[in-house]
C-alpha cells in the first residue's frame, strides 16, 4: 500500500509543488497565518482604531454628509462628568456584585455537593448545566413570560408562599423589583458555569492531602478551610473574573427582559451605549463611551489572563 504522504505529493499539481518547494518553513507558516491576521486586522483592529478616531469628533452616523468637527477630549470630559452615566455605572455595579456573589456562593456549594460520590451524580450534573447551554435570547424571552403578573409562574409561587396576590405586583415593572429580577435570571443561567469551574478545582485536590489531614486528626471544618478553600480559590478567582467581564458587558438578556426599564432602574451601561449610538445617533460621543468600557474590560481581561496562567502553573 502506498504511503499517504507520497499519495498527497502525487496529487499536488506540479507547478504548485515546484513553487512551494522553494519556500522556507517560515514563509509557508506565514502563508497559512496570513488570512487569519488579515481578518483580525479587518474585523477587530481597524474598527477599534476607527472608533478611537471617531471618539475625538462630533460625527453622527445618521448625518453622513454633515461636517465632522474635531472636538478633542470633550466627549470623554462630558461622559466622565455626567451624573446619569455615573448612575448607570452604579446600576451595572449593583448587577455585577450581586450576580457574582450569588453565583459564587451557590456555584461553590453545588460543586461541593456534586463532588461527593452518589447514585445519579452524572445525570444531576448534566441537568444543572442545562441553563447555561441556552441562548440568552431564549432565556430572556421565556423569563419574560415567567415574570408576567397575570400568567407568570413566579408571581403565583410568591403568592403561594407569602399570600401576596399574584396580580398585585410585577417583577419587571415599577416598584424596585426589576434590578433583582435580572439578577435572579443571570444567577439561574450562569451559576452552573461557576459550579463547573469549582468542580474542576475540587477534583484537582489529591486525596492524599485529606488522608494526611485525617492522620493529623484535623476536623472536617478545619480541612474545609485549610485545604479545600485555598486549593479551589485560584479556580474561583478565574470564574469571578470571567463572569465579571461578561456581566460588565451584559446586553442581550437584560435588553430582552426590561430594555433598561422601568425608568432607568436596569439601565446597564451597554444598553445606554446602544441608545446613544443607535437611537440618539451620537456616534462620536458613543465611541468615546465605548472606548471607556473597552479599556475597563481590556484591563480586567489582562488580570484574567494572568490569573489563568497562574492556575495553569499549578
Amino acid at each position, binding site marked *: 500500500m502506498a504511503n499517504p504522504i507520497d499519495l498527497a505529493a502525487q496529487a499536488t499539481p506540479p507547478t504548485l509543488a515546484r513553487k512551494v518547494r522553494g519556500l522556507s518553513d517560515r514563509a509557508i507558516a506565514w502563508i497559512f497565518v496570513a488570512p487569519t491576521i488579515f481578518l483580525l486586522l479587518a474585523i477587530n483592529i481597524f474598527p477599534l482604531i476607527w472608533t478611537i478616531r471617531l471618539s475625538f469628533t462630533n460625527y453622527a452616523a445618521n448625518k453622513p454628509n454633515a461636517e465632522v468637527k474635531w472636538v478633542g477630549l470633550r466627549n*470623554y470630559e462630558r461622559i*466622565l*462628568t455626567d*451624573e446619569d452615566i*455615573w448612575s448607570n*455605572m*452604579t446600576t*451595572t*455595579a449593583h448587577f*455585577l456584585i450581586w450576580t457574582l456573589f450569588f453565583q459564587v456562593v451557590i456555584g461553590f456549594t453545588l460543586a461541593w455537593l456534586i463532588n461527593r460520590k452518589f447514585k445519579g451524580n452524572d445525570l444531576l450534573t448534566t441537568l444543572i448545566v442545562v441553563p447555561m447551554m441556552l441562548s440568552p435570547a431564549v432565556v430572556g424571552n421565556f423569563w419574560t413570560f415567567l415574570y408576567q403578573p397575570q400568567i407568570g409562574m413566579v408571581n403565583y409561587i410568591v403568592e403561594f408562599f407569602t399570600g401576596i396576590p399574584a396580580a398585585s405586583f410585577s417583577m419587571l415593572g415599577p416598584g424596585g423589583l426589576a434590578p433583582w429580577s435580572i439578577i435572579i435570571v443571570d444567577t439561574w443561567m450562569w451559576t452552573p458555569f461557576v459550579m463547573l469551574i469549582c468542580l474542576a478545582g475540587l477534583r484537582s485536590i489529591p486525596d492524599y492531602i485529606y488522608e494526611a489531614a485525617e492522620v493529623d486528626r484535623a476536623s472536617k471544618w478545619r480541612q474545609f478551610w485549610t485545604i479545600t478553600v485555598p486549593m479551589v480559590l485560584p479556580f474561583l478567582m478565574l470564574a469571578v473574573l470571567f463572569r465579571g467581564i461578561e456581566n460588565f458587558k451584559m446586553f442581550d438578556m437584560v435588553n430582552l427582559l426590561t430594555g433598561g426599564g422601568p425608568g432607568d432602574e436596569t439601565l446597564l451601561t451597554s444598553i445606554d451605549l446602544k441608545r446613544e449610538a443607535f437611537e440618539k445617533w451620537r456616534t462620536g460621543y458613543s465611541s468615546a463611551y465605548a472606548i*471607556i468600557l473597552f*479599556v*475597563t474590560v*481590556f*484591563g*480586567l481581561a*489582562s*488580570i484574567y489572563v*494572568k490569573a489563568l496562567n497562574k492556575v495553569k502553573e499549578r
Partner: protein
Amino acid sequence: MTTFLSGLLRLRRGPWEMLATILIALGVVMLMQPFFLWAYTWSFLVTLTGTVMFIIVSHFPE
C-alpha cells in the same frame, strides 16, 4: 515589602504586574462606586494607566 520594592527598582515583571493590576482594580472600583463623582471622573485615567502599564511590564524579565 523590601523584595517588592527591589523588584520594582530592578524592573522585574512580578512586582510591576502587581502594581498595574492594583491600578486596574482601583480604576474599576472608582468607575463603579456610587459615592464620589471626582473618583468616577478620574477612574478612566487610572484604568488606562494600569492597562498600558500592564502591556509594557509584561515584557519585562522575570
